[in-house]
């Protein structure tokens, strides 16, 4: 096992989580490659014989860097009501497994993310849990997120919206 790589990427994911938790979305964009593909496919309840229960034809997010940037910039606008007053949120990232990529400047990692969000004085927390499959690329000496797939567990989400990122 490549300890340095495991540590590097784990630290990347923790720092990323902290930026997302603190609503520092512009800083978060700096962690993303301009070639990013970011997808959160819909999950369905399907019999095993039908094959995968992950549906890529419809997603919760199907983003490029440009579309994510626009989503982020919106959250800073005064009339993005969902973001002000800001909800309190945490991304708990765990089960991190890092593998080297096909070239020395790439690698991939799987992890589990639990997002909890509290809005106003609403009793119930919004919650999303899922498994991430990420790839990273070293760009000018820095690791950048090149692709992310998040497979959420729920077929019916219990979050009133996904104004946060997963």
């Amino acid at each position, binding site marked *: 096992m490549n300890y340095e790589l495991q540590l590097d990427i784990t630290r990347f994911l923790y720092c990323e989580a902290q930026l997302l938790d603190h609503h520092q979305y512009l800083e978060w964009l700096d962690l993303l490659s301009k070639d990013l593909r970011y997808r959160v496919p*819909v999950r*369905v309840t399907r019999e095993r014989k039908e094959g995968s229960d992950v549906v890529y034809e419809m997603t919760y*997010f199907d983003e490029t860097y440009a579309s994510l940037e626009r989503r982020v910039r919106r959250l800073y606008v005064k009339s993005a009501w*969902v973001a002000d007053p800001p909800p309190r949120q945490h991304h708990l990232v765990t089960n991190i497994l890092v593998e080297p990529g096909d070239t020395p400047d790439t690698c991939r990692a799987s992890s589990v993310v639990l997002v909890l969000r509290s809005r106003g004085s609403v009793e119930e927390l919004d919650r999303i849990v899922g498994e991430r499959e990420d790839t990273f690329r070293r760009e000018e000496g820095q690791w950048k997120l090149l692709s992310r797939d998040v497979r959420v567990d729920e*077929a019916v989400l219990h979050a*009133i919206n996904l104004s946060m990122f997963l």
Partner: protein
Amino acid sequence: MLSDCKGATATITEDHFRKIREAMDQALLPQWVLTDPEIYALEHEKIFPRTWQFLAHESELKNPGDFVTRWMVDDPVLLVKGEDGVIRAFLNSCTHRGTYLCAADSGNRRTFTCPYHGWTFNWHGDLVGVALGNTLYGAELDRSAMGLRPLPRLESVYGMIFGNLDPHAMSLREYLGDMLWYFEILLKRTAEGMEVIGVPHRWVVEANWKLTYENFTGDPYHVQSTHRSTVELGITPHRAGEDGRMGHQIVLTHGHGVNITQLTYVPPHPYQHTPESLWPLFEQSLSPVQARLLKHASVLVGGVFPTLSFVSPQHGTEGEVFNYLNFRVWRPLGPYKVEIWSWCLIDKEAPSDYKQQAYRAYVGSFGPSGTLEQDDTEMWSRVVQASRGHMVRNKNLAYNNFANYLMGYGRVEPDPTFPGPGQAYPGFVDAVSRSIHQYWFELLTADNAAEVMSHEL
């Protein structure tokens, strides 16, 4: 009136209903009715089992054996396509002891076997297999009477399949009335029509179904405030001289409504930014009047009472905008909860790269992560949060606890020059919302108890 109701309506009196009526006559709605649990129980008894509810689009069931499972409020429904191409709908519950029969959201099966004791049903709902049937049962089991229970009514228009639990309900076409004319613009604008992309989004929000239905069907006013951020970011197009008030709100029968925002000139990207290859198809399939409306339209948004809404907008999160059709069902899960089912449909004949862009535009604007939906859900939740208290809930209306629907009331008249059917009011008005309330009230207070009994429901 209320003594006839089966539900527990312990504290709502004739006088409270009279007060609702009087408030509505002044374009007001008592706030307590939005989330009151007794009203919610009455809606379950008088509205949901007697009205047409959207279940599925035909493009979701392509081949024999294809099935989808849906909910009509609390009733589980199994829709399956037969070898004859006919789509049938059944209560998704085994006739033996009531087990939830098919647990998958969709798929393809030759038969449906209940795992509890092993009874098997075919595409027609017939009971075709009873585990150990020949040794355990004799003449006491009439298999022909033990088929899956079909929905009392199942009808479709332009690929949209609706069910109704009332065997004596008026036909779907009669119920939709002039909405059919607008459905043609949305769904029958090319020979091939629309197709569902992937599967519907489903998520649970804090909201009441009446407010979400009214928001899409009768409230274009909210867009300038709730969705201002998306205009600033170019996710929602804004053209010079364009104003959301340039358009019409069309009041239809049975609590349905449509809003069409239009430009007075032919926009640089006519037909809602659809690909040019589709324009001649629109002109072939639609009447000249319908085609002209679509050509000038920015947004078409509306709903079919009680729980179906739709919007055909133009959005995009990468600078360019694209058109798609979003249908959504507000499935009530309680006075404070709605499960949203949201489908993205795109013209079947659109070029595949356009379809891909339009689907991404949908995901970026509506659905759980949609930049417009994010703020909508926040607003609906805030209304519910402020609707539980003593003041809002006061049925004697002692705290001025009314929501108001005054816009245009007694002042703005229908525009006789509008070419489509229905009562078309120019600009922003609350006319559709007022008509939704009228129909809701009519159904809620209809003295149908005797009739219900005679159906043995």
